[in-house]
């Protein structure tokens, strides 16, 4: 198991490197750059001024040298400074990341709370009207873009109840009530897609398990339907649900961008959105690195959870 985890971590780091090189090169290949953008605000500028600013930012060196300098810094925990505000990128990320993590965490919890029970009901009532209803709900939930849902929530809450989410953002520690008031609606909008896929995955995985031989054995020994479903079948289908959450984390993270924008939440999504069009290279680079890192980390955790849910996998990999 240990060796397996180490191998996965090394592989994850390799992916992270590929991703970094990809974004680094793409950002510099695309026409238009930060120097022109910054000097455009100043009005008329000479060639010398442009060159001076370029070398000040280290952008006069070849791309591969810039990449090496950046990588060297990143390995030492220094992600550079913003080209616009001169703030250390690390500080910016440290402020924004917890906000997005809270949003994602809340919506994962909401999705599992809704998705797993509904999925179980659909599988148990296979083919009955409850199953049909849940299936239709799930596919509809999967098709509604979550930013539209966010807009609908804001519109109709204020239209019907005159309620508007608090304007200023407070962290959970500063003011838990305001924080939750602001976060719960976007989390809800975000959770709809994930709970829809959780329902579908729970349902199909549970159906498959319920048709397997060992369930027949459990039933044959006279176990109650409760025991069959909750102790035996659900546990064995959870593995697919966990994988799904791992795979969907990318969709969830993508969804945060638009929802943070709509609900004016100062998270990672609004940070990358604000900085990418200003070509704030170090900040964007760091954001992409964090997003990719989160995706890889979650999928690594998913793989480790496999072993925890299914002891067979744990023993297999420790033998190998």
């Amino acid at each position, binding site marked *: 198991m240990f060796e397996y985890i180490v191998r996965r971590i090394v592989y994850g780091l390799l992916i992270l490197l590929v991703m970094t090189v990809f974004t680094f090169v793409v950002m510099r290949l695309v026409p238009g750059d930060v120097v022109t953008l910054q000097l455009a605000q100043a009005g008329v500028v000479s060639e010398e001024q442009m060159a001076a600013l370029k070398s000040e930012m280290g952008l006069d060196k070849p791309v591969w040298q810039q990449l090496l300098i950046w990588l060297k810094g990143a390995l030492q925990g220094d992600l550079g400074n913003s080209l616009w505000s001169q703030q250390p990128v690390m500080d910016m990320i440290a402020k924004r990341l917890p906000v997005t993590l809270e949003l994602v965490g809340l919506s994962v919890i909401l999705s599992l709370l809704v998705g797993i029970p509904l999925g179980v009901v659909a599988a148990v009532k296979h083919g009955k009207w409850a199953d049909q209803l849940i299936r239709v709900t799930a596919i509809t939930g999967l098709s509604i873009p979550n930013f539209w849902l966010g807009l609908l929530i804001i519109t109709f809450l204020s*239209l019907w109840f005159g309620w508007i989410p608090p304007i200023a953002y407070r962290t959970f520690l500063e003011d838990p009530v305001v924080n939750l008031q602001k976060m719960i609606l976007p989390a809800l909008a975000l959770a709809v897609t994930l709970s829809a896929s959780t329902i579908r995955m729970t349902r199909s995985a549970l159906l498959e398990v319920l048709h397997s031989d060992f369930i027949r054995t459990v039933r044959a020994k006279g176990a109650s339907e409760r025991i069959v479903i909750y102790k035996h079948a659900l546990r064995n289908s959870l593995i697919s649900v966990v994988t799904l959450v791992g795979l969907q984390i990318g969709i969830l993270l993508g969804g945060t961008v638009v929802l943070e924008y709509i609900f004016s939440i100062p998270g990672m999504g609004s940070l990358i959105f604000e900085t990418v069009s200003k070509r704030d290279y170090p900040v964007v680079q760091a954001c992409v690195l964090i997003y990719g890192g989160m995706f890889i980390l979650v999928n690594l955790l998913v793989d480790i959870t496999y072993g925890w849910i299914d002891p067979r996998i744990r023993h297999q990999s420790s033998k190998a």
Partner: protein
Amino acid sequence: MKRKDVNGVAELSQPGLQLPAAQRAAPRSLFWDECKRFVRTQPTGALSLLFILLMTVTALLSPVLAPYEPDAQYRESIMVGPNADFWMGTDDLGRDVFSRILYGARISLYVGLVTVVLSVIFGTLLGVVSGYFGGIVDMVIQRVMDGIMAIPALILALFIAALLGPDTKHVILALVVVETPRFARIVRGEMLKIRETTYVEAAKAMGARAWRIMLRHGVPNMVAPLTVLASLAFGGAIIAEASLSFLGIGTPPPNPSWGLMLSGATRYMENAPWLVVFPGLALSLSVLAFNLLGDALRDYFDPRLPS
């Protein structure tokens, strides 16, 4: 038609002689049989397909069907709710929301179609080469694809679209970069399986070249998973285009992109809720149709899965 009937009769009396004609006729009737089976076993999928076709026709005919020009501004009716003249109301510039939604379908379908076609082509090429050759080629292609896929789809699309500036072409480029690895991965998996089959071995034994095996034996055998993924990716592309346009880095104004219409609506949500409701409804319904079609195709191609 007449000749076919004669052949049919002749076939009964002299089956051996009519083999070429039977072979020619077979694929067409097989295709129709399969279509009928799809409609019979997947009624929801068939309805969704019908909806998509209807939507395409409506989008193509929008100059004829729309009651107003999408950009025409009616100064006397600014932000009026749905009524007999303006079925879905008007926006802050006095433009007819219904006409704009009809024209907007063109943008969504265009972005979805071009994205899916290009991603299928590039993804298939990369996946087939990766799966067939294996080794170092496979390693390099797969690591690059993994690297791209580790960036959340919408973040990557936003990254590329925002760098390039608001333009429908840039949205498509961004979405192709996002979708290609997903197609490449599934095609590679299929190619790995196909590579080990006996018919590929037979083709190799007959001296078939690599490209011939990939194109003639590989690709036709992965139509099923590709169709399913294409249908789901189409819906995904429509949502992504709307999201990017909503953020102001997708289709530029004054084009009637659904995302752009929603973005304009945010300023008047309480006063004009119809501006939020109708474009979003159009968006959700079209994505729902593609998702239902994708689901139906999956069940149709693989009846073993519990449906």
